[in-house]
Protein backbone atom coordinates (compact mmCIF):
# COMPACT_ATOMS: atom_id res chain seq x y z
CA UNK A 1 0.00 0.00 0.00
CA UNK A 2 2.63 2.50 1.04
CA UNK A 3 5.24 2.67 -1.65
CA UNK A 4 2.72 2.68 -4.45
CA UNK A 5 1.33 6.04 -3.47
CA UNK A 6 2.71 8.15 -6.27
CA UNK A 7 1.76 11.56 -7.46
CA UNK A 8 -0.74 10.40 -10.05
CA UNK A 9 -2.41 8.15 -7.52
CA UNK A 10 -2.53 11.06 -5.11
CA UNK A 11 -4.66 13.08 -7.55
CA UNK A 12 -7.07 10.18 -7.92
CA UNK A 13 -7.06 9.76 -4.16
CA UNK A 14 -8.09 13.35 -3.65
CA UNK A 15 -11.04 12.86 -6.02
CA UNK A 16 -12.12 9.73 -4.18
CA UNK A 17 -11.85 11.54 -0.87
CA UNK A 18 -14.11 14.33 -2.02
CA UNK A 19 -16.70 11.78 -3.06
CA UNK A 20 -16.80 10.33 0.47
CA UNK A 21 -19.37 12.23 2.59
CA UNK A 22 -17.77 11.28 5.91
CA UNK A 23 -14.43 12.64 4.78
CA UNK A 24 -16.04 15.83 3.54
CA UNK A 25 -17.76 16.26 6.90
CA UNK A 26 -14.42 15.76 8.65
CA UNK A 27 -12.70 18.28 6.39
CA UNK A 28 -15.44 20.85 6.96
CA UNK A 29 -15.32 20.51 10.75
CA UNK A 30 -11.53 20.74 10.81
CA UNK A 31 -11.66 23.80 8.59
CA UNK A 32 -14.23 25.43 10.89
CA UNK A 33 -12.03 24.79 13.92
CA UNK A 34 -8.99 26.24 12.15
CA UNK A 35 -10.97 29.37 11.30
CA UNK A 36 -12.43 29.68 14.81
CA UNK A 37 -8.97 29.41 16.33
CA UNK A 38 -7.49 31.83 13.83
CA UNK A 39 -10.24 34.42 14.30
CA UNK A 40 -10.68 33.91 18.05
CA UNK A 41 -9.59 37.49 18.93
CA UNK A 42 -12.25 38.84 16.52
CA UNK A 43 -15.01 36.35 17.40
CA UNK A 44 -14.67 35.95 21.16
CA UNK A 45 -17.01 38.14 23.20
CA UNK A 46 -14.41 38.49 25.97
CA UNK A 47 -10.72 37.88 26.63
CA UNK A 48 -9.88 34.29 27.62
CA UNK A 49 -8.46 35.40 30.96
CA UNK A 50 -10.85 38.25 31.68
CA UNK A 51 -12.47 37.66 35.07
CA UNK A 52 -15.75 38.99 36.34
CA UNK A 53 -16.52 37.64 39.80
CA UNK A 54 -20.13 38.88 39.92
CA UNK A 55 -20.86 36.75 36.84
CA UNK A 56 -19.26 33.58 38.19
CA UNK A 57 -20.76 30.10 37.52
CA UNK A 58 -23.53 31.36 35.24
CA UNK A 59 -25.24 28.63 33.23
CA UNK A 60 -25.46 29.20 29.47
CA UNK A 61 -27.67 32.22 28.78
CA UNK A 62 -28.06 35.13 26.38
CA UNK A 63 -25.06 37.13 27.52
CA UNK A 64 -22.85 34.10 28.13
CA UNK A 65 -23.77 31.59 25.43
CA UNK A 66 -21.77 28.76 27.01
CA UNK A 67 -21.86 30.04 30.59
CA UNK A 68 -19.05 31.21 32.83
CA UNK A 69 -16.52 29.48 35.10
CA UNK A 70 -15.68 29.85 38.77
CA UNK A 71 -13.93 33.18 38.16
CA UNK A 72 -16.61 34.55 35.87
CA UNK A 73 -14.58 33.94 32.71
CA UNK A 74 -16.62 33.44 29.55
CA UNK A 75 -16.48 29.74 28.53
CA UNK A 76 -17.21 30.46 24.85
CA UNK A 77 -14.24 32.82 24.63
CA UNK A 78 -12.02 30.34 26.41
CA UNK A 79 -13.06 27.48 24.14
CA UNK A 80 -12.36 29.61 21.05
CA UNK A 81 -8.95 30.62 22.34
CA UNK A 82 -8.25 27.03 23.39
CA UNK A 83 -7.99 26.01 19.75
CA UNK A 84 -5.01 28.35 19.44
CA UNK A 85 -3.13 26.15 21.91
CA UNK A 86 -4.31 22.64 21.10
CA UNK A 87 -4.26 22.70 17.29
CA UNK A 88 -0.70 24.04 16.92
CA UNK A 89 0.46 21.68 19.69
CA UNK A 90 -1.00 18.66 17.89
CA UNK A 91 0.48 19.76 14.56
CA UNK A 92 3.87 20.41 16.13
CA UNK A 93 3.95 16.92 17.64
CA UNK A 94 3.30 15.11 14.38
CA UNK A 95 5.57 17.32 12.27
CA UNK A 96 8.54 16.94 14.61
CA UNK A 97 7.79 13.24 15.02
CA UNK A 98 7.56 12.80 11.26
CA UNK A 99 11.00 14.36 10.82
CA UNK A 100 12.73 12.59 13.71
CA UNK A 101 10.98 9.29 13.08
CA UNK A 102 11.76 9.35 9.37
CA UNK A 103 15.43 10.15 10.05
CA UNK A 104 15.91 7.41 12.63
CA UNK A 105 13.94 4.84 10.66
CA UNK A 106 15.66 5.77 7.41
CA UNK A 107 19.12 5.54 8.96
CA UNK A 108 18.28 2.15 10.47
CA UNK A 109 16.87 0.85 7.21
CA UNK A 110 19.62 2.37 5.06
CA UNK A 111 22.62 1.25 7.12
CA UNK A 112 21.14 -2.10 8.14
CA UNK A 113 23.15 -4.59 10.20
CA UNK A 114 24.14 -3.68 13.71
CA UNK A 115 22.84 -0.08 13.45
CA UNK A 116 19.46 -1.31 12.40
CA UNK A 117 19.47 -3.76 15.28
CA UNK A 118 20.39 -1.13 17.89
CA UNK A 119 17.99 1.53 16.65
CA UNK A 120 15.09 -0.86 16.40
CA UNK A 121 15.65 -2.30 19.90
CA UNK A 122 15.62 1.26 21.28
CA UNK A 123 12.43 1.91 19.33
CA UNK A 124 10.77 -1.15 20.83
CA UNK A 125 11.77 -0.03 24.31
CA UNK A 126 9.92 3.21 23.94
CA UNK A 127 6.91 1.29 22.72
CA UNK A 128 6.90 -0.83 25.90
CA UNK A 129 5.38 2.05 27.84
CA UNK A 130 1.73 2.96 27.37
CA UNK A 131 1.95 6.36 25.67
CA UNK A 132 0.27 8.64 28.14
CA UNK A 133 2.16 7.08 31.06
CA UNK A 134 5.57 7.68 29.51
CA UNK A 135 4.53 11.19 28.47
CA UNK A 136 3.42 11.81 32.04
CA UNK A 137 6.81 10.81 33.43
CA UNK A 138 8.71 12.90 30.89
CA UNK A 139 6.62 16.03 31.46
CA UNK A 140 6.84 15.62 35.20
CA UNK A 141 10.63 15.42 34.92
CA UNK A 142 10.95 18.41 32.59
CA UNK A 143 8.44 20.57 34.39
CA UNK A 144 4.88 21.21 33.23
CA UNK A 145 4.35 23.67 30.39
CA UNK A 146 3.14 23.58 26.79
CA UNK A 147 6.59 23.20 25.26
CA UNK A 148 7.50 20.29 27.50
CA UNK A 149 4.16 18.58 26.92
CA UNK A 150 4.79 18.75 23.17
CA UNK A 151 8.33 17.50 23.70
CA UNK A 152 7.08 14.61 25.82
CA UNK A 153 4.60 13.60 23.14
CA UNK A 154 7.34 13.79 20.51
CA UNK A 155 9.42 11.45 22.68
CA UNK A 156 6.62 8.92 23.05
CA UNK A 157 5.27 9.00 19.49
CA UNK A 158 8.39 8.89 17.28
CA UNK A 159 8.82 5.08 17.38
CA UNK A 160 5.70 4.58 15.23
CA UNK A 161 7.14 6.85 12.56
CA UNK A 162 10.58 5.27 12.77
CA UNK A 163 9.20 1.78 12.21
CA UNK A 164 7.13 2.93 9.27
CA UNK A 165 10.05 4.80 7.69
CA UNK A 166 12.43 1.88 8.21
CA UNK A 167 10.10 -0.49 6.38
CA UNK A 168 9.67 1.99 3.53
CA UNK A 169 13.40 2.54 3.13
CA UNK A 170 14.15 -1.17 3.10
CA UNK A 171 11.49 -1.59 0.43
CA UNK A 172 12.66 1.42 -1.58
CA UNK A 173 16.40 0.86 -1.49
CA UNK A 174 16.20 -2.26 -3.65
CA UNK A 175 14.24 -0.47 -6.38
CA UNK A 176 15.80 -0.16 -9.82
CA UNK A 177 15.98 3.62 -9.81
CA UNK A 178 17.90 3.53 -6.52
CA UNK A 179 20.29 1.05 -8.09
CA UNK A 180 20.60 3.44 -11.03
CA UNK A 181 21.34 6.39 -8.75
CA UNK A 182 23.92 4.30 -6.94
CA UNK A 183 25.63 3.30 -10.18
CA UNK A 184 25.87 7.01 -11.04
CA UNK A 185 27.85 7.44 -7.83
CA UNK A 186 25.17 8.59 -5.41
CA UNK A 187 26.18 7.67 -1.86
CA UNK A 188 25.38 8.35 1.80
CA UNK A 189 23.42 11.49 2.64
CA UNK A 190 22.97 12.40 -1.03
CA UNK A 191 21.32 9.09 -1.82
CA UNK A 192 19.32 9.24 1.39
CA UNK A 193 17.94 12.74 0.93
CA UNK A 194 17.77 13.12 -2.84
CA UNK A 195 16.62 9.66 -3.87
CA UNK A 196 15.17 7.81 -0.92
CA UNK A 197 13.47 10.73 0.89
CA UNK A 198 11.17 11.86 -1.93
CA UNK A 199 10.17 8.27 -2.61
CA UNK A 200 9.34 7.32 0.94
CA UNK A 201 7.90 10.46 2.49
CA UNK A 202 4.30 10.26 1.22
CA UNK A 203 3.20 7.38 3.47
CA UNK A 204 4.81 9.12 6.46
CA UNK A 205 2.78 12.24 5.69
CA UNK A 206 -0.38 10.16 5.36
CA UNK A 207 0.33 8.40 8.64
CA UNK A 208 0.96 11.75 10.28
CA UNK A 209 -2.38 13.08 9.15
CA UNK A 210 -4.05 9.98 10.59
CA UNK A 211 -2.18 10.59 13.81
CA UNK A 212 -3.13 14.23 14.48
CA UNK A 213 -6.27 13.12 16.32
CA UNK A 214 -4.22 10.93 18.64
CA UNK A 215 -1.70 13.69 19.26
CA UNK A 216 -4.47 16.13 20.19
CA UNK A 217 -6.13 13.59 22.52
CA UNK A 218 -2.84 12.88 24.26
CA UNK A 219 -2.04 16.56 24.60
CA UNK A 220 -5.45 17.18 26.14
CA UNK A 221 -4.89 14.22 28.45
CA UNK A 222 -1.56 15.57 29.68
CA UNK A 223 -3.08 18.94 30.17
CA UNK A 224 -6.02 17.34 32.02
CA UNK A 225 -3.45 15.81 34.37
CA UNK A 226 -2.04 19.28 35.03
CA UNK A 227 1.09 18.52 33.02
CA UNK A 228 0.47 20.97 30.20
CA UNK A 229 -0.17 24.70 30.23
CA UNK A 230 -0.52 26.61 33.49
CA UNK A 231 -3.86 26.35 35.35
CA UNK A 232 -5.43 29.61 34.15
CA UNK A 233 -4.77 28.73 30.50
CA UNK A 234 -7.85 28.27 28.29
CA UNK A 235 -6.53 24.90 27.12
CA UNK A 236 -9.43 22.42 26.73
CA UNK A 237 -8.06 19.54 28.80
CA UNK A 238 -7.07 21.92 31.56
CA UNK A 239 -10.54 23.48 31.59
CA UNK A 240 -12.06 20.02 32.02
CA UNK A 241 -9.82 19.09 34.92
CA UNK A 242 -10.81 22.30 36.71
CA UNK A 243 -14.41 21.52 35.82
CA UNK A 244 -14.30 18.22 37.75
CA UNK A 245 -14.48 20.20 40.99
CA UNK A 246 -17.61 21.87 39.63
CA UNK A 247 -19.43 18.73 38.54
CA UNK A 248 -22.91 20.27 38.78
CA UNK A 249 -21.82 23.21 36.64
CA UNK A 250 -21.75 20.86 33.65
CA UNK A 251 -21.10 23.65 31.15
CA UNK A 252 -17.63 24.12 32.63
CA UNK A 253 -16.45 20.69 31.49
CA UNK A 254 -18.89 19.70 28.76
CA UNK A 255 -18.12 22.43 26.20
CA UNK A 256 -14.34 22.17 26.23
CA UNK A 257 -14.84 18.39 26.12
CA UNK A 258 -17.06 18.63 23.05
CA UNK A 259 -14.48 20.88 21.44
CA UNK A 260 -11.82 18.17 21.80
CA UNK A 261 -14.20 15.40 20.75
CA UNK A 262 -15.49 17.18 17.65
CA UNK A 263 -12.04 18.14 16.45
CA UNK A 264 -10.52 14.70 17.05
CA UNK A 265 -13.53 13.00 15.51
CA UNK A 266 -13.25 15.16 12.42
CA UNK A 267 -9.58 14.24 12.03
CA UNK A 268 -10.47 10.58 12.51
CA UNK A 269 -13.25 10.80 9.91
CA UNK A 270 -10.69 12.05 7.42
CA UNK A 271 -8.21 9.41 8.52
CA UNK A 272 -10.76 6.63 8.31
CA UNK A 273 -11.73 7.60 4.77
CA UNK A 274 -8.08 7.82 3.82
CA UNK A 275 -7.42 4.37 5.22
CA UNK A 276 -10.39 2.82 3.44
CA UNK A 277 -9.20 4.21 0.15
CA UNK A 278 -5.58 3.20 0.60
CA UNK A 279 -6.36 -0.27 1.88
CA UNK A 280 -9.62 -1.48 0.34
CA UNK A 281 -9.42 -4.79 2.22
CA UNK A 282 -10.27 -3.10 5.52
CA UNK A 283 -13.29 -1.16 4.41
CA UNK A 284 -15.34 -3.52 2.31
Amino acid sequence: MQATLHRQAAGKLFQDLRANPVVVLGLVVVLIWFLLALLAPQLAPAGPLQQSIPDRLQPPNRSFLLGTDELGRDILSRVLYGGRITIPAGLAVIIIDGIIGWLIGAIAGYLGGIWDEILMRVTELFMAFPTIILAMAVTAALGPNIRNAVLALVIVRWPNYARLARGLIIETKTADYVEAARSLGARGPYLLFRTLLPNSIAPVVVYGSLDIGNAILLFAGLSFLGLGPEPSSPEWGRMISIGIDFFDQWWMWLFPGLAIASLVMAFNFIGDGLRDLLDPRLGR
Partner: protein
Amino acid sequence: MPLYRYIIRRVLFAIPMLLGITVVSFLIAHAVPADPINANLPQNALGNERLVTAFRERWGLDKPPVVQYLTYLRNLLQGDMGVSIKTKNPVLEDIRQFLPATFELATFSIIVGLAMGIGFGVVSAVWRNTIFDYLVRVFALIGVSFPIFLLALVALAVFHAQLGWAAGPGRLGFLVRDPPHVTGLFTIDSLLAGQWQTLRDAVAHLVLPSLVLGSYVSGIIARITRSSLLEVLGADYIRTARAKGQVERIVVLGHGLSNALIPVVTILGVLYGNLLAGAVLTESIFAWPGIGRYAFRASTSQDFPAIMGVSMLIALIYVVANFLVDILYFLLDPRIRYT
Protein backbone atom coordinates in the same frame (compact mmCIF):
# COMPACT_ATOMS: atom_id res chain seq x y z
CA MET B 1 8.21 -26.59 19.76
CA PRO B 2 6.95 -27.69 23.20
CA LEU B 3 5.32 -25.17 25.50
CA TYR B 4 8.12 -24.98 28.08
CA ARG B 5 10.68 -24.08 25.42
CA TYR B 6 8.39 -21.42 24.09
CA ILE B 7 7.96 -20.00 27.60
CA ILE B 8 11.73 -19.96 28.17
CA ARG B 9 12.16 -18.14 24.88
CA ARG B 10 9.56 -15.52 25.81
CA VAL B 11 11.13 -15.05 29.25
CA LEU B 12 14.54 -14.53 27.67
CA PHE B 13 12.88 -12.01 25.40
CA ALA B 14 11.17 -10.22 28.30
CA ILE B 15 14.29 -9.78 30.45
CA PRO B 16 16.07 -7.26 28.19
CA MET B 17 12.71 -5.50 27.86
CA LEU B 18 12.38 -5.19 31.62
CA LEU B 19 15.98 -4.00 31.94
CA GLY B 20 15.34 -1.53 29.14
CA ILE B 21 12.36 -0.13 31.00
CA THR B 22 14.54 0.50 34.03
CA VAL B 23 17.09 2.25 31.78
CA VAL B 24 14.43 4.53 30.29
CA SER B 25 13.00 5.29 33.74
CA PHE B 26 16.49 5.94 35.05
CA LEU B 27 17.24 8.30 32.18
CA ILE B 28 14.02 10.22 32.76
CA ALA B 29 14.56 10.38 36.50
CA HIS B 30 18.27 11.20 36.53
CA ALA B 31 19.40 12.61 33.25
CA VAL B 32 16.51 14.79 32.17
CA PRO B 33 15.74 17.11 35.08
CA ALA B 34 18.29 19.69 36.06
CA ASP B 35 18.61 18.25 39.53
CA PRO B 36 17.14 14.97 40.82
CA ILE B 37 17.41 16.28 44.36
CA ASN B 38 15.05 19.13 43.59
CA ALA B 39 12.64 16.76 41.91
CA ASN B 40 12.60 14.06 44.58
CA LEU B 41 12.75 15.86 47.90
CA PRO B 42 9.97 18.04 49.29
CA GLN B 43 10.63 21.79 49.34
CA ASN B 44 11.21 22.02 53.07
CA ALA B 45 13.84 19.28 53.01
CA LEU B 46 16.04 21.05 50.47
CA GLY B 47 17.52 23.38 53.08
CA ASN B 48 18.35 20.48 55.36
CA GLU B 49 21.96 19.53 54.59
CA ARG B 50 21.70 16.17 56.32
CA LEU B 51 18.63 15.02 54.40
CA VAL B 52 20.13 16.11 51.10
CA THR B 53 23.38 14.25 51.83
CA ALA B 54 21.49 11.16 52.91
CA PHE B 55 19.46 11.22 49.70
CA ARG B 56 22.57 11.72 47.57
CA GLU B 57 24.23 8.80 49.30
CA ARG B 58 21.26 6.46 49.02
CA TRP B 59 20.94 6.93 45.27
CA GLY B 60 24.70 7.26 44.65
CA LEU B 61 24.27 10.68 43.06
CA ASP B 62 27.92 11.64 43.67
CA LYS B 63 29.10 8.61 41.67
CA PRO B 64 29.47 8.21 37.88
CA PRO B 65 26.23 7.54 35.92
CA VAL B 66 26.84 3.81 35.48
CA VAL B 67 27.24 3.34 39.23
CA GLN B 68 24.16 5.54 39.71
CA TYR B 69 22.18 3.25 37.44
CA LEU B 70 23.35 0.12 39.27
CA THR B 71 22.45 1.73 42.60
CA TYR B 72 19.06 2.58 41.18
CA LEU B 73 18.59 -0.99 39.97
CA ARG B 74 19.67 -2.43 43.33
CA ASN B 75 17.28 -0.15 45.22
CA LEU B 76 14.53 -1.08 42.79
CA LEU B 77 15.09 -4.82 43.23
CA GLN B 78 14.82 -4.27 46.96
CA GLY B 79 11.48 -2.59 46.36
CA ASP B 80 12.78 0.91 46.98
CA MET B 81 11.06 3.30 44.55
CA GLY B 82 11.62 6.37 46.65
CA VAL B 83 9.27 8.21 48.98
CA SER B 84 6.18 10.03 47.76
CA ILE B 85 6.40 13.76 48.41
CA LYS B 86 2.69 14.04 48.90
CA THR B 87 1.76 11.02 51.02
CA LYS B 88 5.21 10.76 52.70
CA ASN B 89 4.96 6.95 52.35
CA PRO B 90 7.34 4.76 50.35
CA VAL B 91 5.96 4.67 46.81
CA LEU B 92 5.85 0.87 46.80
CA GLU B 93 3.69 0.85 49.92
CA ASP B 94 1.28 3.36 48.34
CA ILE B 95 1.09 1.27 45.20
CA ARG B 96 0.43 -1.90 47.17
CA GLN B 97 -2.44 -0.14 48.87
CA PHE B 98 -4.01 1.27 45.71
CA LEU B 99 -3.34 -1.47 43.15
CA PRO B 100 -6.16 -3.91 44.10
CA ALA B 101 -8.86 -1.33 43.40
CA THR B 102 -7.43 -0.69 39.93
CA PHE B 103 -6.94 -4.37 39.25
CA GLU B 104 -10.59 -5.05 40.10
CA LEU B 105 -11.79 -2.22 37.90
CA ALA B 106 -9.52 -3.16 34.99
CA THR B 107 -10.64 -6.79 35.12
CA PHE B 108 -14.32 -5.88 35.03
CA SER B 109 -13.62 -3.37 32.28
CA ILE B 110 -11.81 -5.79 30.02
CA ILE B 111 -14.71 -8.25 30.37
CA VAL B 112 -17.21 -5.52 29.50
CA GLY B 113 -14.98 -4.34 26.66
CA LEU B 114 -14.62 -7.82 25.19
CA ALA B 115 -18.34 -8.55 25.42
CA MET B 116 -19.30 -5.26 23.78
CA GLY B 117 -16.49 -5.24 21.24
CA ILE B 118 -16.91 -8.82 20.05
CA GLY B 119 -20.69 -8.47 19.95
CA PHE B 120 -20.53 -5.31 17.90
CA GLY B 121 -17.83 -6.74 15.67
CA VAL B 122 -19.91 -9.82 14.85
CA VAL B 123 -23.05 -7.78 14.15
CA SER B 124 -21.06 -5.46 11.95
CA ALA B 125 -19.41 -8.26 9.97
CA VAL B 126 -22.50 -10.45 9.54
CA TRP B 127 -24.72 -7.56 8.44
CA ARG B 128 -21.99 -5.63 6.73
CA ASN B 129 -22.82 -2.48 4.83
CA THR B 130 -26.22 -2.34 6.52
CA ILE B 131 -27.36 0.29 8.97
CA PHE B 132 -26.08 -1.87 11.89
CA ASP B 133 -22.62 -1.96 10.40
CA TYR B 134 -22.54 1.81 9.96
CA LEU B 135 -23.81 2.37 13.51
CA VAL B 136 -21.10 0.14 14.93
CA ARG B 137 -18.42 1.82 12.87
CA VAL B 138 -19.56 5.26 13.95
CA PHE B 139 -19.67 4.06 17.56
CA ALA B 140 -16.11 2.77 17.22
CA LEU B 141 -14.99 6.08 15.76
CA ILE B 142 -16.62 8.02 18.57
CA GLY B 143 -14.97 5.65 21.02
CA VAL B 144 -11.49 6.47 19.76
CA SER B 145 -12.22 10.19 19.41
CA PHE B 146 -13.83 11.02 22.74
CA PRO B 147 -11.43 11.92 25.52
CA ILE B 148 -12.08 9.24 28.11
CA PHE B 149 -12.31 11.73 30.96
CA LEU B 150 -15.16 13.44 29.14
CA LEU B 151 -16.91 10.10 28.64
CA ALA B 152 -16.58 9.47 32.38
CA LEU B 153 -18.02 12.86 33.29
CA VAL B 154 -20.93 12.54 30.88
CA ALA B 155 -21.71 9.01 32.07
CA LEU B 156 -21.70 10.11 35.69
CA ALA B 157 -23.81 13.18 34.97
CA VAL B 158 -26.40 11.28 32.93
CA PHE B 159 -26.66 7.83 34.51
CA HIS B 160 -25.98 8.77 38.09
CA ALA B 161 -26.90 12.41 38.67
CA GLN B 162 -29.81 12.70 36.20
CA LEU B 163 -31.37 9.28 35.83
CA GLY B 164 -30.21 7.70 39.08
CA TRP B 165 -29.70 4.34 37.34
CA ALA B 166 -26.11 3.81 38.45
CA ALA B 167 -24.31 4.08 41.75
CA GLY B 168 -22.20 7.18 42.26
CA PRO B 169 -18.46 7.65 42.76
CA GLY B 170 -16.41 5.49 45.12
CA ARG B 171 -16.07 1.74 45.58
CA LEU B 172 -18.90 1.42 48.11
CA GLY B 173 -21.83 3.51 49.32
CA PHE B 174 -21.40 5.85 52.29
CA LEU B 175 -22.97 3.53 54.82
CA VAL B 176 -21.33 0.33 53.66
CA ARG B 177 -18.17 -0.80 55.41
CA ASP B 178 -15.21 -2.37 53.64
CA PRO B 179 -15.24 -6.18 53.65
CA PRO B 180 -12.47 -7.83 55.71
CA HIS B 181 -9.21 -7.50 53.80
CA VAL B 182 -8.04 -10.67 52.07
CA THR B 183 -7.27 -9.87 48.43
CA GLY B 184 -8.18 -6.17 48.40
CA LEU B 185 -10.73 -6.90 45.68
CA PHE B 186 -14.03 -5.93 47.28
CA THR B 187 -16.10 -8.34 45.18
CA ILE B 188 -13.96 -11.33 46.15
CA ASP B 189 -13.50 -10.27 49.77
CA SER B 190 -17.20 -9.74 50.37
CA LEU B 191 -17.94 -13.07 48.71
CA LEU B 192 -15.44 -14.81 50.98
CA ALA B 193 -16.95 -13.15 54.04
CA GLY B 194 -20.46 -13.99 52.87
CA GLN B 195 -21.50 -10.30 53.01
CA TRP B 196 -24.05 -10.30 50.19
CA GLN B 197 -25.16 -6.73 50.77
CA THR B 198 -21.57 -5.50 50.42
CA LEU B 199 -21.07 -7.62 47.31
CA ARG B 200 -24.13 -6.10 45.66
CA ASP B 201 -22.98 -2.62 46.54
CA ALA B 202 -19.45 -3.25 45.26
CA VAL B 203 -20.74 -4.59 41.94
CA ALA B 204 -23.18 -1.68 41.62
CA HIS B 205 -20.31 0.76 42.03
CA LEU B 206 -18.24 -1.09 39.44
CA VAL B 207 -20.88 -0.86 36.72
CA LEU B 208 -20.44 2.72 35.55
CA PRO B 209 -16.64 3.01 35.60
CA SER B 210 -16.20 -0.37 33.93
CA LEU B 211 -18.75 0.54 31.25
CA VAL B 212 -16.78 3.71 30.54
CA LEU B 213 -13.39 2.00 30.46
CA GLY B 214 -14.86 -1.01 28.66
CA SER B 215 -16.42 1.02 25.88
CA TYR B 216 -13.10 2.86 25.57
CA VAL B 217 -11.41 -0.39 24.47
CA SER B 218 -14.46 -1.97 22.82
CA GLY B 219 -14.14 0.25 19.73
CA ILE B 220 -10.75 -1.24 18.90
CA ILE B 221 -11.98 -4.76 19.66
CA ALA B 222 -15.05 -4.29 17.45
CA ARG B 223 -12.91 -3.07 14.59
CA ILE B 224 -10.49 -5.97 14.75
CA THR B 225 -13.26 -8.56 15.23
CA ARG B 226 -15.08 -7.18 12.21
CA SER B 227 -12.19 -7.24 9.77
CA SER B 228 -10.89 -10.55 11.04
CA LEU B 229 -14.30 -12.23 10.90
CA LEU B 230 -14.88 -10.90 7.38
CA GLU B 231 -11.59 -12.42 6.31
CA VAL B 232 -12.33 -15.77 7.97
CA LEU B 233 -15.85 -15.97 6.54
CA GLY B 234 -14.32 -15.89 3.08
CA ALA B 235 -12.16 -18.93 3.81
CA ASP B 236 -12.57 -22.33 2.17
CA TYR B 237 -13.45 -24.20 5.34
CA ILE B 238 -16.39 -21.86 5.90
CA ARG B 239 -17.66 -22.65 2.42
CA THR B 240 -17.21 -26.33 3.21
CA ALA B 241 -19.19 -25.98 6.43
CA ARG B 242 -21.98 -24.22 4.58
CA ALA B 243 -21.88 -26.75 1.76
CA LYS B 244 -22.41 -29.63 4.14
CA GLY B 245 -25.55 -27.85 5.35
CA GLN B 246 -24.34 -26.56 8.68
CA VAL B 247 -26.66 -24.09 10.43
CA GLU B 248 -25.57 -20.51 9.66
CA ARG B 249 -25.41 -19.58 13.35
CA ILE B 250 -22.91 -22.36 14.01
CA VAL B 251 -20.95 -21.51 10.88
CA VAL B 252 -20.51 -17.90 12.02
CA LEU B 253 -20.11 -18.34 15.77
CA GLY B 254 -18.50 -21.78 15.87
CA HIS B 255 -16.27 -22.05 12.82
CA GLY B 256 -15.93 -18.37 12.04
CA LEU B 257 -15.66 -16.52 15.31
CA SER B 258 -13.42 -18.99 17.10
CA ASN B 259 -10.82 -18.49 14.38
CA ALA B 260 -11.47 -14.79 14.00
CA LEU B 261 -10.76 -14.10 17.66
CA ILE B 262 -7.07 -14.96 17.47
CA PRO B 263 -6.08 -11.42 16.38
CA VAL B 264 -8.19 -10.08 19.25
CA VAL B 265 -6.23 -12.21 21.71
CA THR B 266 -2.93 -10.89 20.41
CA ILE B 267 -3.84 -7.31 21.22
CA LEU B 268 -5.23 -8.06 24.69
CA GLY B 269 -1.92 -7.12 26.30
CA VAL B 270 -1.86 -3.78 24.53
CA LEU B 271 -5.49 -3.20 25.46
CA TYR B 272 -4.73 -3.91 29.10
CA GLY B 273 -2.05 -1.23 28.96
CA ASN B 274 -4.56 1.17 27.41
CA LEU B 275 -7.01 0.35 30.16
CA LEU B 276 -4.50 1.21 32.86
CA ALA B 277 -3.70 4.45 31.07
CA GLY B 278 -7.44 5.11 30.84
CA ALA B 279 -7.71 4.39 34.55
CA VAL B 280 -5.19 7.15 35.24
CA LEU B 281 -7.49 9.58 33.43
CA THR B 282 -10.82 8.40 34.87
CA GLU B 283 -10.34 7.14 38.41
CA SER B 284 -10.31 10.64 39.87
CA ILE B 285 -13.67 11.35 38.30
CA PHE B 286 -15.17 8.23 39.87
CA ALA B 287 -13.31 8.85 43.16
CA TRP B 288 -11.94 5.34 42.64
CA PRO B 289 -9.11 4.84 45.14
CA GLY B 290 -6.73 3.07 42.75
CA ILE B 291 -3.30 3.79 41.29
CA GLY B 292 -4.96 5.92 38.60
CA ARG B 293 -6.20 8.42 41.13
CA TYR B 294 -2.88 8.15 42.93
CA ALA B 295 -1.11 9.00 39.66
CA PHE B 296 -3.52 11.84 38.96
CA ARG B 297 -2.88 13.37 42.35
CA ALA B 298 0.84 12.83 41.95
CA SER B 299 0.78 14.59 38.57
CA THR B 300 -1.24 17.56 39.69
CA SER B 301 1.00 18.06 42.72
CA GLN B 302 4.32 17.38 40.95
CA ASP B 303 5.00 14.35 43.13
CA PHE B 304 7.89 13.10 41.00
CA PRO B 305 8.84 9.85 42.81
CA ALA B 306 5.21 8.74 42.79
CA ILE B 307 4.80 9.45 39.08
CA MET B 308 7.96 7.50 38.26
CA GLY B 309 6.82 4.62 40.47
CA VAL B 310 3.44 4.37 38.76
CA SER B 311 4.91 4.66 35.25
CA MET B 312 7.38 1.92 36.00
CA LEU B 313 4.68 -0.28 37.48
CA ILE B 314 2.36 0.14 34.51
CA ALA B 315 5.18 -0.56 32.07
CA LEU B 316 5.98 -3.74 34.02
CA ILE B 317 2.35 -4.85 34.02
CA TYR B 318 2.29 -4.13 30.30
CA VAL B 319 5.28 -6.40 29.65
CA VAL B 320 3.89 -9.17 31.86
CA ALA B 321 0.45 -8.91 30.24
CA ASN B 322 2.00 -9.21 26.79
CA PHE B 323 4.01 -12.18 27.97
CA LEU B 324 0.86 -13.94 29.18
CA VAL B 325 -0.90 -13.09 25.95
CA ASP B 326 1.96 -14.63 23.96
CA ILE B 327 1.51 -17.87 25.86
CA LEU B 328 -2.24 -17.80 25.37
CA TYR B 329 -1.65 -17.20 21.68
CA PHE B 330 0.65 -20.19 21.55
CA LEU B 331 -2.03 -22.39 23.11
CA LEU B 332 -4.75 -21.07 20.80
CA ASP B 333 -3.01 -21.07 17.47
CA PRO B 334 -1.36 -24.38 16.59
CA ARG B 335 0.32 -22.82 13.57
CA ILE B 336 3.04 -21.05 15.58
CA ARG B 337 4.04 -24.30 17.26
CA TYR B 338 5.57 -25.45 14.02
CA THR B 339 7.48 -22.34 13.07
